[in-house]
């Protein structure tokens, strides 16, 4: 009986191994569980399921094996009439649990809502629009582990893909959900890795120790140094809205890849061109904004700055005070951009428009001139070139160095 349960579990997609099964037998032998089905269920789950994502699969197999409902499981993976499900779960649930379900509006309604929710979830995911990223939790989140877990299981087989996404949402960090396909971008960004020694000193500095000891006439003088870590700091400024709409996907991918790659990543949004304010949350950009001056004060010049925008607009939006399409700007975009390039020696502009179109738009030419020619297309090759540019120590203007520039431990490139 138990061995069949074990093989069924494996067939049902619960990754259980022999030692775990033996652990269950051992536990049974040690009389951990009293002789009740419920305790046995808890014990079996405890010993054999190691991930809450597998709970509902386990529940299904458990029901199948111990309620004598032969072969029900295989049918579960096919289309499943709700009555069967109801039958199955009624058999599985205790009276108390049934009452709870009843209180939630009954089975039919729950299942219907769940299905609907799943459909929604799938569509939203495929649509890939931003909102999902921030709102990826579902009110159904916990149901998978409720007594009604079976219900989730059923839906899981019908909408396998959608549920997988859902599971991932529930238990991983969902902000960077569009990571698929960003691998190439990550590889590109990787060029920017720079390892530096920062933070607590906890590694023996061999050379330093020998040197200091020698100077100490042989009396040992231990020198420590911090561990090497990727210390690149990145400030990402993204254009949103208007002409950028067709490029949303690639920008999201870039953002998500950068999120994964850099520990020190800060981002802000702007519209068309940076003026006196930028913001972090597009939904609330009218109320919560960051003063660009304070941004320039907050981030010191060793941040590398990446603008992402198509730079396609009327030239007045750059050249004229008050030229912004959204508000009255006291100072022109040109002034603000110059402030940026002065403050941040390492700065590039990534343009999602293809390179051959740039010359047709005057504003692109102006922007390009403003950033000192450091505009690159948002392609893998362009990214590569941009990262090369950012890697150079002083940047083009060459004036400002990072505070550590003269110390021997200044970021060493090892890529």
């Amino acid at each position, binding site marked *: 009986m138990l061995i069949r349960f074990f093989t069924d579990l494996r067939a049902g997609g619960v*990754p259980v*191994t022999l*030692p*775990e099964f033996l*652990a269950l037998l*051992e*536990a049974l032998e*040690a009389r*951990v*569980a009293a002789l009740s089905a*419920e*305790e046995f269920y*808890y*014990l079996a*789950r*405890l*010993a054999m*399921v*190691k*991930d*809450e994502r597998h*709970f509902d699969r386990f529940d299904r197999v458990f029901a199948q094996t111990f309620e004598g409902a032969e072969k029900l499981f295989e049918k579960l993976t096919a289309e499943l009439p709700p009555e069967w499900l109801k039958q199955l779960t009624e058999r599985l649930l205790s009276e108390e649990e049934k009452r*709870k379900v009843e209180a939630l509006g009954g089975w039919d309604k729950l299942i219907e809502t769940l299905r609907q929710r799943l459909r929604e979830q799938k569509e939203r995911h495929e649509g890939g629009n931003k909102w999902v990223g*921030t*709102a990826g*939790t*579902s*009110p159904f989140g*916990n149901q998978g*582990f*409720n007594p009604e877990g079976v219900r989730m299981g059923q839906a899981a087989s019908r909408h396998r893909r959608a549920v997988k996404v859902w599971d991932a949402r529930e*238990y*991983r*960090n969902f902000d960077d959900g569009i990571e698929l396909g960003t691998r190439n971008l990550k590889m590109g960004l990787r060029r920017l890795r720079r390892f530096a020694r920062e933070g607590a000193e*906890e590694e*023996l500095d061999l050379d330093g120790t020998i040197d200091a000891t020698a100077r100490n006439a042989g*009396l*040992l003088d*231990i020198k420590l140094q911090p561990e090497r870590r990727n210390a690149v700091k990145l400030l990402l400024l993204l254009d949103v809205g208007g002409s950028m709409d067709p490029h949303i996907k690639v920008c999201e991918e870039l953002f998500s890849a950068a999120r994964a790659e850099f520990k020190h990543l800060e981002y802000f949004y702007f519209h068309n061109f940076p003026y006196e304010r930028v913001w972090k*949350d597009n939904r*609330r950009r009218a109320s919560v904004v960051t003063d660009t001056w304070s941004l320039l004060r907050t981030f010191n010049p060793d941040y590398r700055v990446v603008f992402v925008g198509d730079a396609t607009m009327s030239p007045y939006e750059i050249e004229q005070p008050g030229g912004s399409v959204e508000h009255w700007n006291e100072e022109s975009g040109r002034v603000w951009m110059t402030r940026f390039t002065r403050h941040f020696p390492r700065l590039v502009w990534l343009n999602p428009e293809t390179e051959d179109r740039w010359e047709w738009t005057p504003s692109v030419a102006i922007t390009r001139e403003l950033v000192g020619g450091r505009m690159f297309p948002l392609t893998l090759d362009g990214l590569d070139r941009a990262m090369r540019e950012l890697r150079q120590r002083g940047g083009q203007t060459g004036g400002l160095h990072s505070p550590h520039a003269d110390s021997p431990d200044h970021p060493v490139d090892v890529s």
Partner: protein
Amino acid sequence: MNETRFTGTESYVATPDLMMAVNAAVILGRPLLIKGEPGTGKTQLAAEIARALQRPLHEWHIKSTSKAHHGLYEYDAVSRLRDSQLGEEKVHDIRNYIVKGSLWEAFESDVQPVLLIDEIDKADIEFPNDLLRELDRMEFFVNETRELIKARHRPIILITSNNEKELPDAFLRRCFFHYIRFPDAATMEKIVRVHFPDLKAELLREALTSFFGVRETPGLRKKPSTSELLDWIKLLLAEDIPPEALRGDDPKKLIPVLHGALLKNEQDVHLFEQLVFLNRRAGR
């Protein structure tokens, strides 16, 4: 055998499946891996077990820089070297420079101890793999002194994880696993009762209703958890808020009083306000 059964304590409400998990781990001497939403009392569980079973508690809090051998021992070669230069007497015995970690201390304990390995997912991906043998055989070898350290009594090991990283299969195989589910209303009521025995029934009911209401708001970034509910109730008591103030039918008030204890970022507060507003309009 009876005193080794864990049934919760007067300050900790354990559900039947949790009790089963703890008891199985105690009896079979296997590590118990605990996951669950933040604020469901994962870390607290170890302390409660230690208290209920009257065992010493050893804690090992994992940080992103933690290495597996920190839990076993560290050989302080540097200070030995320095001592040798200064001609200290104790330099001749290497044992003076071996600093025991919490795992070692737990292994040496005279009675079966409880060992908490807190937030194992904070450490490097390889971290759990480096502990496999130690957790399996409950022994490890000290290279410097050529000593084999064996646990006198297999400690009750509790490991908590917040799911920040996937744990390796080989590690999971050696553990029992329990997921602390978010408590349902009835359990929650018990939990609140344990912490606030004098709370008026009416206030409790209203507080729980609005709490679960907040939790059900779709799209919250951070759902309020048990510990936040307890904080909130503490606040309500301190401010002496009457139960009526919590009732949702007051049209002037959009969100629960003192919501700062429940909703921890402004996006959530904002979202919640919007939803309540929409619901109200729809309700008319």
